[in-house]
């Protein structure tokens, strides 16, 4: 049972991470692969607030999300002001720099990792509700992003991505929007981080590096950029299948590499079978409002 819970947790967390990353890179067109660093900020903030300051977990997790959001604004504002391309470099620099700092500080557990994070204990039967809440938050994230991308804000995001110069010449504050998109996506990653920290109760900087970036990017691309359900499917399939073979009770020396091969193999199969992603996003934005009007207009 514990194992199934852990698997569901991971799938739910990756749904939050992949859909929020798609919101930033797919919908927003903001080229950054540093999404895991905001996942890390949410996780470490929430863990340390609970561990060192005794903050209750239900408060620590949202606090972690808020800190991740604020950190993302601090990265995005100056770099977007210089140029859109600069965000990629600045955010990777931030990711590597912060992880290096975490590695070298005793307070954060260093490279050995942070242990004894307060969590819900399995004995008291607390895991079940925690998993349910996490799954509900994942569903909530998907519905929120679906609502936003289909709203008038979603229309503006599409226009901004297509041509930010024409966009601003119409009176739109493209810069504010880019920061907003980046902040919301990063804040959601921070939320996932807090949820992770108090369930698995162990954090190490290695979990949030470039490999994690690559995994998230893969989920988004394989699932289908700029679609809501694509990254959901990508997260579930690419997280679930490699994990599921743990059931086979293989020796660890075999299991690790086999999981890696399975992940890569799945990616290759999907890429060849459906280059546009499992669920390709439409080329033309169709908001809900537009659909309504068209239906009314039809005889």
């Amino acid at each position: 049972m514990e194992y199934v819970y852990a698997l569901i947790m991971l799938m739910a967390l990756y749904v939050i991470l992949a859909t929020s990353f798609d919101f930033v890179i797919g919908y927003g067109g903001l080229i950054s692969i540093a999404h895991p660093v905001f996942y890390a900020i949410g996780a470490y903030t929430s863990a340390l607030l609970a561990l060192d300051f005794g903050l209750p977990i239900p408060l620590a997790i949202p606090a972690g999300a808020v800190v991740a959001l604020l950190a993302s604004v601090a990265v995005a504002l100056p770099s977007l002001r210089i140029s859109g391309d600069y965000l990629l470099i600045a955010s990777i620099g931030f990711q590597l720099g912060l992880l290096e700092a975490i590695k070298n500080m005793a307070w954060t557990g260093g490279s050995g990792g942070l242990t004894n994070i307060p969590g819900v204990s399995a004995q008291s039967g607390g895991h079940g509700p925690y998993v349910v809440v996490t799954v509900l938050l994942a569903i909530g994230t998907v519905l929120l992003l679906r609502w936003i991308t289909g709203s008038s804000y979603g229309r503006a995001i599409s226009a901004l991505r297509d041509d930010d110069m024409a966009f601003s010449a119409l009176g739109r504050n493209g810069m504010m929007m880019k920061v907003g998109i980046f902040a919301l996506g990063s804040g959601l990653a921070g939320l996932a981080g807090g949820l992770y920290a108090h369930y698995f109760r162990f954090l190490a900087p290695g979990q949030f590096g470039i490999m994690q970036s690559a995994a998230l990017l893969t989920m988004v691309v394989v699932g289908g950029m700029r679609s809501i359900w694509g990254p959901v499917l990508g997260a579930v399939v690419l997280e679930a299948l490699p994990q599921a073979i743990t059931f086979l009770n293989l020796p660890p020396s075999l299991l690790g590499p086999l999981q890696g091969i399975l992940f890569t193999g799945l990616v290759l199969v999907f890429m060849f079978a459906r280059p546009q992603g499992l669920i390709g996003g439409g080329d033309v934005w169709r908001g809900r409002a537009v659909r309504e009007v068209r239906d009314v207009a039809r005889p």
Partner: protein
Amino acid sequence: MSPGLEVRMLCKRFGGIVVADSINLQIPAGRVVGLIGPNGAGKTSFFNLVSGIVRPDAGSVTLGGVDLTGLKTHQRARRGLSRTWQNLRLFSSLTVLDNLLVAPRLYLGESLTALLFGAGRVRRAERADRERATAILERTGLADIAHMSVGSVTFGQQKLIGVARALMNDPCCLLLDEPMAGVEGQAYQTIQRVVRDLAESGIAVCVVEHNVAFIRDLCDEGVFMFAGRVLARGSVAELIADPRLTELYFGT
């Protein structure tokens, strides 16, 4: 006559190239001014400077008496300055209607907080905008293709969409960059009529165009630009008749 757009001592150079050399230009409200000059004269650069896309080295821009000089592009647009683009710059992943719907001067939908905490207000504004957009599409003859993707319509229609999108912006001053290039027939007539109507409703219009017939029929006056400088201003007929300008225009 109300002040319209006023540009004073506008200067800009890119390295060795002077694209704006102390340009003084006034476009009164309700007038259509044609900006004429050979390729590379600095006409598009002038629009970029006025709309805030490019920062000038010196000079000022005011619209209706309001100083725009220090403002960013989107702030200038919110004060009534609109433009179209020589290379269209339509939003390719949006339908024709949606290209207009992101273009009102105030668009509540661009604010995430307005959306999250005032969804009702956003929806009401959206409904009003849609009515206005539909009216503009009717007026520009684009109503039939409202729900098509902008990539799938003819070039002439795309040019019209660029103008319609600028109209949605409800400008006090409109800068049109080569609206007629590659346009013929129906779209040609429509653009001509729309620009005329705009001027009559009190908007200051500046048109860059190589189509002499269009300029002559439409513009109240012309401005001749060469190498970043305004060389002459007068009736279009006068400018065309000036052999010195004709020589500059066609090169030697």
